[in-house]
């Protein structure tokens, strides 16, 4: 609904009768009015008080209408104020010039109060709509910033320092905030929980759901349950809290550096790639593994892998396999594995960076449509 409520307006005219009469019309129309006798006074008052609009006479001594418009144009705080210039009937060339300099509309004197109301209402409505839009944008940006900071504080600040293991991780969000996450939880000197997850949506809703899932997983991990039990519990909580119907894929594994066992549960997520000392991929049995957050009792593909000595493990999200080039072709699992194999001699962190670079080159810097997460673990 249009907002025509009264505003605080500035009337600028060197002629007392004109000021008085215009002010009267405006007050009758529900506005409050302040007055300036010349351009200089007008500019001073504009800088001192907030006005919604100005009615500006063009012909004035000591700083005329043009000069006022000039001043306002170069002041960021005043630039957007709607201005209606008032002029004599034979001054149209001046009016045109004023409009070119930023005036929004004009009225000829003697001023007709019906026209006055129409022009003022139109200007105020536009201004208020613009102001509303600007406020909304600012609020959205602030919320986005907030979500981004929450996420930044959630992701592991440090990589684990488990003896005999080298950890690496990168996460590249598709937008300002992401739905991907990864986590390392050191249970003791020998065991680390490694988690990679991917929430179904993107942007702020996904970020919130991601933060929720992340917190639940952290809570469960410290109870040292089996991976399957941990994810089953997380799922139960997500079911209760999940009104938006969002879901998440998770790979949750406990790495034991002494036994070199990777004991994991897989909720609809990609299997890890394990390369042995010669760079050959391990065959890993794949059972049913379903997403969390929707089903009451999802299948969770629990498995134990014994990792060979000097093997390397790569966990990732489908942002990597589903990265697209300009022709719409997918990067795919084979390319992920190939890039991984090519770079397996680098440090765990460098492996992640270099695989990401291969993906980026493939997608030829197309805007990414999903978050990409890569986690690498090298065993001695």
């Amino acid at each position, binding site marked *: 609904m249009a907002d025509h409520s009264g505003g605080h307006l500035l009337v600028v005219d060197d*002629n007392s*009768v004109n000021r*008085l*009469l215009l002010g009267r019309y405006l007050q009758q129309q529900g506005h409050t009015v302040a007055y300036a006798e010349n351009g200089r006074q007008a500019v001073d008052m504009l800088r001192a008080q907030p006005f919604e609009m100005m009615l500006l006479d063009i*012909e004035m001594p000591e700083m005329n209408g043009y000069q006022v418009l000039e001043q306002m144009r170069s002041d960021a705080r005043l630039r957007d104020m709607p201005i209606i210039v008032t002029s*004599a009937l034979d001054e149209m060339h001046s009016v045109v010039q004023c409009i070119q300099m930023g005036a929004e509309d004009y009225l000829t004197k*003697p001023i007709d*109060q019906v026209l006055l109301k129409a022009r003022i209402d139109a200007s105020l409505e536009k201004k208020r709509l613009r102001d509303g839009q600007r406020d909304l944008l600012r609020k959205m940006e602030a919320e986005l910033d907030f979500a981004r900071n929450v996420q930044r504080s959630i992701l592991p600040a440090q990589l684990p320092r488990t003896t005999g293991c080298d950890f690496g991780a990168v996460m590249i969000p598709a937008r300002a905030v992401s739905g991907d996450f990864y986590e390392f939880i050191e249970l003791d000197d020998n065991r680390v929980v490694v988690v990679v997850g991917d929430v179904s949506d993107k942007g702020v809703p996904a970020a919130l759901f991601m933060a929720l899932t992340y917190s639940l997983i952290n809570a469960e991990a410290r109870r040292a349950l089996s991976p399957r039990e941990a994810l089953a519990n997380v799922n139960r909580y997500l079911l209760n809290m999940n009104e938006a119907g969002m879901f998440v894929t998770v790979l949750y594994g406990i790495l034991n550096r002494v036994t070199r066992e990777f004991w994991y549960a897989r909720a609809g997520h990609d299997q890890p790639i394990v390369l042995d000392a010669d760079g050959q991929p391990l065959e890993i049995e794949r059972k049913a593994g379903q997403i969390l957050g929707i089903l009451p009792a999802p299948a969770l593909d629990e498995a134990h892998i014994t990792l060979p000595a000097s093997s390397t493990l790569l966990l990732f999200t489908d942002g990597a396999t589903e990265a697209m080039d300009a022709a719409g072709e997918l990067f795919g699992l084979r390319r992920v594995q190939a890039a991984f194999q090519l770079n397996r001699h680098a440090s765990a962190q460098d492996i992640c960076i270099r695989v990401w670079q291969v993906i980026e080159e493939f997608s030829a810097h197309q805007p990414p449509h999903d978050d990409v997460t890569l986690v690498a673990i090298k065993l001695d």
Partner: protein
Amino acid sequence: MSVIDLPTFKKLKNDVGADFVGELIATYGAETPQLMTKLQQALTAHDASAFRQAAHSIKSTSNTFGALQLGALAKELETMGREGNLTNAHHTVDQLVAEYDRVLQTLKELNHG
């Protein structure tokens, strides 16, 4: 041409009320002589710009009240000022002063009527 255009005056009175019209007339009566003094000073000093500005202001308020003849005279003077040719201005200025007296008198009478 009558001194005051009655429809214009009536509309003004309708729009803002007789009391406020009284206020306007009082302000007009205070301000216009000052403007006419400026006009004459500008004429003496051959200051076409100041002359034009004063004439412009008188024209503006005259038309507001429906004092069309006065407005027309003021417009003539404004044009002289814009063109920088004040040679024959004093004659029209005298007419302006005389017309103004009639206008002010008529306005007061109309508003009390």
